[in-house]
């Protein structure tokens, strides 16, 4: 294995690797029960409590302490709603409960993006084709240049500016994501085909805006501007937080991208392999993991997208040990380090270079990642 290419495993090793991960998945599936149900209900209760508390405080938002506390509570509520509840529930992580309140296909979340469109662009497109250039639209979200293999264009000089705007307006960026606006621009799709989607975005976005920017402020009477400002801030806090966590999932130094040819006819083991190499974890305490929607365990999430997120911390221990045995990198680091490398990438890729469709040498997976590869991996140790 050289420092510039992804580590290589033989087909037999990949199969064995896949079987070990399958075994983890099956074991957890068989163990799902009251513990998981209680967990997600506790989080939901906390989120609804924070929301009601936050909105109540913001109704008297003209009092500075109430405004601060209310805005903080509402921000936390939106973060929990979107990340630990919405994102995970919509993956079908709690479908086995058979409870309509946590049904993956029925759930709607407190953000502008209609849940149905998210389920398509995220659960299907992104999770199936993770980090495959040209197929995974989460690489740059059709707005940014996040890979050296994306051909440079003068438009990308604005990369850092677009990134800041995307962070602040993230919920609206996500809402428009499934429209594939860049494909319309390239003449591969037309606005005409997008009528239904636009209508759904309009309906959902309007209800969200009406609630946060009209109704709750009006209920506060003369305090309306304070409520409005609190709601706007809470949405922005959630936007920036979600952007930060999500951009740390696949863009830190050391994550790999793949081509369509490379991934054709992938086996189960190869699919796991791609998910592992394309994802990066964040280290932190239990509260940090909950607020990240357990996307801090992005690797485990991509290996097991439909296992309840709160289990990932436990699984990470096993996954890391398996990676160690197979000599595979396990990209993990604290938020400031991972996000720092993402910011560097955003700025660096604003400028031309090493693009042009040719596969650029990857920075060493070992450079940033906490690599735990022993020199001679013992494979499938008996």
């Amino acid at each position: 294995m050289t420092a510039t290419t992804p580590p290589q495993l033989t087909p037999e090793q990949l199969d064995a690797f896949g079987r070990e991960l399958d075994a983890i998945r099956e074991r957890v599936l068989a163990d799902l029960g009251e513990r998981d149900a209680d967990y997600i209900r506790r989080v939901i209760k906390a989120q609804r409590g924070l929301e009601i508390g936050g909105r109540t405080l913001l109704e008297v938002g003209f009092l500075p302490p109430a405004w601060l506390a209310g805005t903080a509570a509402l921000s936390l509520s939106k973060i929990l709603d979107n990340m630990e509840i919405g994102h995970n529930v919509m993956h079908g992580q709690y479908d086995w409960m058979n409870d309509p309140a946590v049904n993956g296909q029925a759930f709607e979340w407190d953000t502008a993006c209609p849940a149905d469109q998210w389920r398509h662009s995220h659960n299907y497109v992104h999770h199936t084709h993770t980090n495959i250039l040209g197929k995974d639209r989460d690489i740059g979200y059709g707005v940014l240049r996040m890979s050296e293999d994306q051909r440079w264009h003068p438009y990308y000089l604005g990369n850092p500016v677009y990134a800041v705007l995307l962070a602040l307006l993230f919920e609206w960026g996500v809402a428009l994501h499934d429209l594939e606006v860049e494909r319309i621009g390239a003449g591969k799709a037309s606005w005409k085909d997008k009528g239904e989607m636009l209508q759904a975005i309009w309906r959902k976005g309007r209800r969200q805006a009406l609630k946060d920017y009209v109704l709750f402020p009006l209920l506060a009477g003369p305090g309306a501007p304070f409520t409005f400002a609190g709601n706007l801030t809470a949405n922005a806090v959630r936007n920036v937080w979600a952007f930060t966590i999500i951009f740390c999932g696949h863009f830190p130094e050391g994550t790999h991208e793949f081509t369509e040819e490379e991934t054709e006819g992938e086996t189960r083991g190869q699919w796991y392999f791609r998910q592992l190499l394309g994802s990066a974890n964040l280290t932190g305490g239990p509260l940090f993991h909950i607020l990240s929607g357990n996307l801090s365990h992005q690797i485990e999430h991509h290996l097991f997208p439909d296992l309840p997120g709160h289990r990932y911390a436990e699984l990470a221990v096993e996954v890391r040990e398996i990676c160690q045995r197979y000599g595979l990198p396990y990209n993990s680091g604290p938020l400031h380090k991972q996000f720092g490398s993402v910011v560097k990438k955003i700025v660096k890729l604003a400028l031309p270079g090493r693009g042009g469709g040719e596969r650029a040498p990857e920075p060493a997976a070992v450079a940033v990642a906490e690599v735990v590869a022993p020199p001679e991996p013992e494979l499938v140790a008996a």
Partner: protein
Amino acid sequence: MASEALVCAQVFTEMPQRLTRKLLGSALADALATPHGVDRYVELVRPAFSLHEVRAEVVSVRRPTARGVTLTLRPNANWQGFCAGQFVRLSVEIDGVRHTRCYSPASSAHAGDLIELTAHAQPDGVVSPFLRASARAGMVVSLSQADGDFALPDERPEQVLLISGGSGITPVMSMLRTLCHEGYRGPIAFLHYARDEHDVAYARQLAELASGHANVRLLRGYTRKMGVGELKGRFGREHVRAAGIDSTRALTFACGPSALVDAVRATWAQDELDARLYVEQFAPPAPARVDTTDGHVAGTLRFARSGVAATGTPAPLLDQAEAAGLTPTSGCRMGICHTCTCRKLEGAVRDVRTGEVSTAPDELIQICVNAPVGDVTLDI
């Protein structure tokens, strides 16, 4: 005067409740609670509340026999009542998983805002043993509206013959109670079959109704204890004669295990009285295990919503649905994205990745990675 005062008092206690409900059901409340909806907030403090769903609080629990458990439920304001003999789908959560089963209320259809259900713990069951062991007052369950054609017609017949076996007693018990409640004057005969006299859930209530109403005749037969009940052996014509009912003028309602229901049906068919017979029989319990050593069990695939049926193959259900001309939504086709998840109404399926077989009725499955094992019905 007294009754007027009572009505006034009732109005005053109901008014705040009605007002609250009206407020919570308003368009403004809906807009403020978007996208989750009002229920998802109120249910955290009042679990039985819902603007649209029927939920019920368990008011009391009795365990009348070694296997039986009787729940008295108070359904919420969305409950529309039932006709004697109908069933409801009751959902309870067991180890984090919501299970749904059908039960017939055994109470009178005129019993006010309470309904009574009785379950008999089945040795291989999930829900009934759970209710027998763990049901307690204060528990909240989900209900459907009442459903089913096994019901007393609005125009009451001249005579009524009720026949039940084992836990099949509940819908006919409801009919008997409803008729007695209404002051029905025609002759009613109640034939009940059980293993022995200790295994009858409504033994005392039946005896009281029979002794309190001259038009009600109660006849009991015990299959494992001869010579105790009024009836000897299994159901036969002589039992109908003993009941003193003219089956050409009566409506007959029979509910119980298939052997009993089949025998009744055959007798009524011989007499060409099929139109005067209503039956409900226990579905054979779903097998807990399915032998899939050969990988496939032949069966029929039914797509309930589109009314399409096909012969099952060992292929994933998604492929078979598409082969049958349907276009269910799907994505990855490898069990990742849950786009194709749909409700399996009944039957067993095998996860093609793990080989694990799942037999639970009314559960969500990913049709791209599940193949049928025998007959399967999907909500597509």
